[in-house]
């Protein structure tokens, strides 16, 4: 067994109550590394096309990478995977904290959960031994309370991944939480967990992750920490990503006013400053970090007083995505209200990006009289009405009041509200879009529209490009082959990073070469070249994409909200006049990766080059619809 792996995954069938260990062959680990790479391969083989995402045939996976739980920079991540009930596509969600490392210390590289339990349960894993436990005493409780109950029962050193009331009620905005404030947010996988009546996974362990060359790994870590001069590292240390909020509102990166406004005019600097950097950390009592992380970008907030006082004495600092989703998107400059909204999302187990976007959507519908005070139970959903924003968030989490209509996100809500409401419904195939505007960084249009998980910003592209991977092109040169080559390379290295179990910030501050050196030192795969690893990244991109193609899903058929691409263009601000030629950009990318320009099916040659020739008959049978003009 190579270093970095515990050598087995736990398979749980909740319908029968059966648990079993499964060893993974080294060839599989070399090809897919871990995380959602391994998850996509395993689920492609085990989840049949057409499976109901909320049914027993869907598998919910919790997977680490080879660097998780080691001294690597920054080996703290795990990924939740499954077929998304929100988008009908492949789904995955990435999370930090302590759970991932402790899953490995408990003896497992991952857990795959199939079936549906007849009653609420949780999985307990203690040093290589797993069992199903009755969850009656924690079902119905919010996440912090549930976690506290489970830790009282199993010890303070236990780590817990769990859902809150939103997941129990199968809200498509539900996420998987751990440590009261870390979230595997996207793809609605908390709803899958709730549909399975699985409340939590509790892990305890004292095992050590084997490392092939620990001395080399420590040397890499020491050198990288000593030599890193990235200014962004200092921002993360001092503020977390809250440090970029005001700058993003000014530059055009942040969407404003449900994607229809401009930072310069609708969320001016004096407003953006109130939900950014020093204004946020003024409410912070202390910093904290994920497992062995030298950055420690997390924060614990003061409980506060007054209208937006936190329920807990240790609520978490909102990150940039949350500050933008509940800030510039809703024109809300009340940082205490955003901190409170963040706590509510954590407590109920809601994805903050999707929830903030859904609230901003509801506000725009209210402002345009598509919904009324009668519909909202008297809530005045106006731009910037902090109290209403916070109360609506609570209602969404509890699935009560007007929040019940919004608890499954914008796409479902818009279908109920009628055709006029569709104008303001900004989502891609059901996923609310992350807080980075493709009109500012056009490469994002390819990521949002083409990645296996639509609307996501962390799946590769120029936004998350490593500082030591450079290409020379104009970001608005849509047809440029160099632009397409860059996107391909950025996607592939990001898949390697995510599959390896490291934090995105570990690569954006220390570079991708450090990541690959760490992988060689941990696994012992010293003969694997950079190209071998990038090929693994491309293989991961293809298997995720193939999961969707086998469902008959062509990403060229995804809805494309006009506001995302500048149709019509804004008439003011840094994004004034910009309309993206995303079609040309995407066609250039499809040519670069050798995927069919009408179906996006990878060519047989491209599949064979990645050792995926066995997918050829599957993808022919899938009958993916062709898009003649895009």
């Amino acid at each position: 067994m190579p270093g970095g792996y515990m050598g087995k995954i736990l398979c749980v069938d909740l319908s029968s109550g059966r648990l079993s260990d499964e060893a993974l062959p080294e060839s599989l680990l070399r090809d897919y590394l871990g995380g959602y790479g391994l998850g996509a391969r395993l689920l492609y083989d085990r989840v049949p096309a057409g499976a109901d995402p909320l049914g027993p045939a869907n598998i919910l996976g919790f997977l680490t990478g080879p660097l998780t739980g080691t001294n690597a920079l920054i080996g703290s991540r795990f990924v939740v995977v499954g077929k998304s009930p929100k988008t009908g596509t492949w789904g995955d969600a990435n999370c930090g904290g302590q759970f991932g490392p402790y899953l490995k210390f408990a003896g497992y590289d991952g857990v795959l959960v199939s079936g549906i339990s007849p009653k609420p349960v949780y999985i307990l894993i203690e040093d290589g031994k797993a069992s199903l436990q009755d969850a009656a005493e924690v079902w119905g409780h919010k996440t912090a309370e549930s976690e506290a109950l489970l830790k009282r029962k199993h010890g303070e050193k236990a780590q817990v991944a769990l859902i809150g009331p939103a997941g129990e009620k199968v809200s498509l905005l539900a996420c998987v939480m751990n440590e009261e404030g870390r979230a595997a947010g996207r793809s609605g996988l908390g709803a899958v967990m709730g549909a399975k009546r699985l409340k939590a996974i509790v892990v305890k362990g004292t095992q050590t992750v084997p490392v092939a060359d620990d001395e080399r790994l420590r040397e890499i870590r020491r050198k990288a920490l000593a030599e890193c001069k990235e200014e962004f590292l200092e921002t993360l240390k001092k503020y977390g990503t809250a440090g970029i909020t005001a700058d993003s509102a000014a530059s055009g990166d942040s969407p404003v006013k449900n994607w229809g406004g401009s930072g310069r005019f609708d969320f001016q600097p004096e407003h953006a400053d109130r939900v950014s950097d020093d204004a946020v950390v003024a409410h912070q009592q202390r910093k904290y970090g994920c497992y062995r992380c030298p950055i420690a970008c997390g924060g614990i907030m003061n409980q506060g007083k007054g209208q937006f006082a936190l329920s807990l004495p240790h609520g978490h600092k909102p990150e940039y995505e949350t500050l933008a989703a509940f800030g510039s998107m809703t024109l809300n400059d009340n940082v205490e209200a955003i901190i409170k909204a963040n706590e509510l999302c954590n407590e109920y187990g809601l994805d903050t990006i999707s929830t903030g976007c859904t609230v901003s959507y509801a506000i725009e519908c209210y402002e345009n009289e598509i919904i009324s005070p009668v519909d909202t139970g008297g809530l005045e959903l106006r731009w910037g009405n902090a109290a209403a924003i916070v109360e609506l968030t609570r209602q969404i989490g509890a699935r009560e009041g007007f929040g019940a209509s919004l608890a499954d996100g914008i796409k479902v809500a818009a279908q109920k509200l009628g055709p006029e409401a569709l104008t303001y419904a900004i989502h891609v195939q059901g996923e609310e879009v992350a807080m980075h505007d493709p009109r500012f960084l056009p490469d994002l249009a390819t990521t949002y529209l083409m990645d296996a998980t639509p609307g996501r910003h962390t799946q590769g592209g120029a936004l998350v490009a490593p500082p030591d991977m450079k290409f020379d092109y104009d970001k608005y040169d849509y047809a440029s082959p160099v632009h397409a080559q860059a996107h391909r390379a950025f996607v592939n290295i990001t898949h390697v990073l995510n599959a390896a179990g490291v934090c995105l910030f570990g690569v954006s501050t220390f570079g991708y070469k450090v990541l690959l050196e760490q992988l060689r030192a941990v696994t012992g795969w010293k003969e694997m070249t950079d190209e071998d690893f990038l090929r693994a990244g491309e293989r991961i991109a293809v298997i995720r994409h193939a999961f969707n193609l086998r469902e008959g899903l062509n990403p060229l058929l995804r809805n494309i909200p006009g506001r995302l691409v500048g149709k019509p263009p804004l008439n003011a601000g840094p994004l004034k006049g910009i309309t993206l030629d995303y079609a040309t950009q995407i066609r250039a990318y499809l040519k670069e990766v050798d995927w069919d320009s009408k179906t996006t099916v990878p060519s047989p040659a491209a599949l064979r080059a990645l050792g995926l020739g066995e997918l050829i008959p599957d993808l022919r049978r899938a009958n993916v619809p062709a898009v003649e003009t895009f």
Partner: protein
Amino acid sequence: MPADATIVVRLRVAPTLRHTLPAFAGAKEIEVHLAQGATVYDLAAAVGLDMVQMGLLCVLNGQTASAEATLQQGDEVRLLHRLAGG
């Protein structure tokens, strides 16, 4: 304007830089005096920043601009980090 005239522009930088750059001493925004014809790159250098090496973006009067953009009296400049997710 005479050949030796100066212009005055307002500058904001990324939050951590305002605490580390002596020119800012923690202030959100400062005024910088530059020679006529100065560029954004010159402005950054005047406060101790290498735009290219640090990969900073420029927003000039609310619009993104390159480091070569020439500044005018009264311009408002923001120098920002390249983006990252989160």
